[in-house]
């Protein structure tokens, strides 16, 4: 039924705008598939931020993109095991405000198929207070913020900051 309505709608728009729309979505999907390390970085940073407020079951995490009929969605299903108290949250924020960047030393939750992530985790584990010895990780511009949906992912060196 949704298909029928979608097609009905589409018949009235020019094939040019339909082509443009389809291209926009398919290219997002293509570009994401072509940058798995970037995607891992993004997921890692998301988790770091969440873990300041929540404890999560890292083995149950499912984060992925989906290309639906007209929208490109990021789905994140994250089992929460505990909500931190305000004191704990305050302590975390204080820790991150002092000299760290937003990435911290979270576990990846996956089986670590990317060698780069394991190396970085070990390096950070050696400097548990998030001191300046860890090199700043590149920030990733979330797709939701791309100005026109077409900007390809770019990895830039980032200044240490405390928020995503």
């Amino acid at each position, binding site marked *: 039924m949704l298909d029928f309505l979608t097609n009905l709608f589409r018949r009235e728009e020019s094939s*040019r705008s339909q*082509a443009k729309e389809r291209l926009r979505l398919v290219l997002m999907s293509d570009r994401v598939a072509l940058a798995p390390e970037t995607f891992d970085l993004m997921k890692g940073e998301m988790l770091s931020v969440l873990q300041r407020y929540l404890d999560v079951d890292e083995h149950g995490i499912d984060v992925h993109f989906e290309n639906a009929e007209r929208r490109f969605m990021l789905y994140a299903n994250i089992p929460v095991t505990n909500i931190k108290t305000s004191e704990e949250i305050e302590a975390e924020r204080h820790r991150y405000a002092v000299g760290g960047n937003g990435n911290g030393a979270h576990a990846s939750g996956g089986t670590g198929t990317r060698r780069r992530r394991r190396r970085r985790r070990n390096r950070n584990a050696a400097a548990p207070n998030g001191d300046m010895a860890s090199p700043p990780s590149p920030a990733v511009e979330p797709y939701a913020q791309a100005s026109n949906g*077409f900007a390809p992912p770019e990895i830039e060196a980032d200044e240490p900051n405390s928020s995503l």
Partner: protein
Amino acid sequence: MKGNIFVVTSGKGGVGKTTTTANLGVALARLGKQVALVDADIGLRNLDLVLGLEKRIVYDVVDLAEGRCQPRQALIKDKRLPGLFLMPAAQTKDKESVSEAQMARVVHALGADFDAVLIDCPAGIEHGFRNAVAGADEAILVTMPEVSAIRDADRIIGMLGTRRTRVVVNRVRPEMVKTGDMLSVDDVAEILGREILGVVPDDEEVIDTTNRGQPVALDATRRLAAIYSTMARRLLGEDIPALELLDDGLWSRIRRIMVGQR
């Protein structure tokens, strides 16, 4: 400008890489430059055919790469223009006969002797593509306003690294853009996010000139010749704003149509 080495690529086949390579080469030569065109489509060569030089091939790029001849022997001098040379591909070998390092050496050597080197890249992203790109400083990405072509172009952009990449939007049909049946040049520029080197309308003259081995840019009276000439001048560093075609009324109307304004 000495030694700038361009790869003319696309990802998608059939969008006009070879035609663009041939015509840009002719246009550059007509501007007085020394130009070497290299056919990197080993096994499926066509640049020779498009230039009408297919009967004069003795040595090819594989012979040169394997040291069976001197560079000058593998270069065919075009008799129509003083600065235009072709290094043909081998037809009976396959693309694995030449390595990326060998191709890079060949084109760098050419780059030292010529004002411009244009490498005609095969379709796809396999060994032949990697060879063609290996020695290039910059890329000319040819595409058309069509979904598959642009998707492939986007993929290619990701494989060109930090090379300056400029887009040729080929085979545009202004009447279809106007009726909303074809993506506009603006659409393409927005989607790919790269500077536009030029816009070439679809033209049946291209078939005719290919059949006869006389690239359309040879004939100054043809409208496409002016377009290629403008592109060539931009390649040489002249700052001509994109889409400034000839200034008679017909062209400015077509220009408006092609950018999707109604």
